[in-house]
């Protein structure tokens, strides 16, 4: 016995896979939410200067 944990690749793939999945889904959701909100602002004609400073 070497004392080293044997195997474990499934845990490694799970950690990397879940990380990639959550980050990709969050990024896509953010871009979609911005596009929806931008359309609402464009329709309402709200000014930009006050909140962007």
């Amino acid at each position, binding site marked *: 016995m070497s004392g*080293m944990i044997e195997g474990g690749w499934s845990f490694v793939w799970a*950690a990397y896979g879940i990380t990639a999945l959550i980050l990709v889904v969050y990024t896509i959701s953010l871009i979609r939410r911005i596009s929806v909100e931008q359309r609402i602002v464009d329709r309402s004609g709200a000014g930009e200067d006050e909140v962007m400073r």
Partner: protein
Amino acid sequence: MPTDESKHRAGSRWTPAVLLAVAVILLAIGSWYGLFVAPPEHYMGEVQRIMYVHVPTAWSAMLLFTFAFGCALVYLFRGGWSWDSRMEGAIEVGVVYAALLCIQGAIWAKPTWGVWWDWDPRLTTTAVMLFAFLGILALRRFVDDPVKRAVWSSVATIIAYVDVPIVYFSVKWWNSLHQQQSSPSTVSEAFYLPLRLNAFGMLFLAIALVLLRARLSALRLRSELAPPLPEPGAMLAATPGGSE
């Protein structure tokens, strides 16, 4: 002719895309190196490869909450809606990173400690950090007045931030089951490159996501602060030839 301001806005819209592209490249190279090139660790074997994604996530989560803390202070002392938007962005992205941190940690804990979770000081303070900032996001959803929302959530951010240094020092202050902090100076040179590449990748990704999320907050604020559109009937009445 585009004005300087419009050029600046166009440039700032490209910044998240450039940062995202750089982050993806760094994370792809760092993860490939960490998964297939770096050797397995002496005791943890292949499972240690989770470190190349877990540690950069932890660093970025703490930096995000530190930035949110800074934004809260600036908003309270100097004002400015952009600081409120940046704070909200940093908190939301920080919560995503902190949730990932807990998930990755649980996946790493199972083969090394034999359990998915333990109420060890590092894990407990990290969970408190996650739920404290999640609570601030919930608080922001429940307050309609933008000024009250910004002030209350700034104060709550400052209070919640007290836990962040406790998370960092918990492994030093208490006899924690969790190992001490890893950094390029405390790990073998064989692990150094993927750790550093992924650290910068996660950081650039975090900055890009905060810029995008702050943009979303600013757009929502514009809708909230805009005067309501007049009713169609009122517009007709206001027209010189309109009916009474």
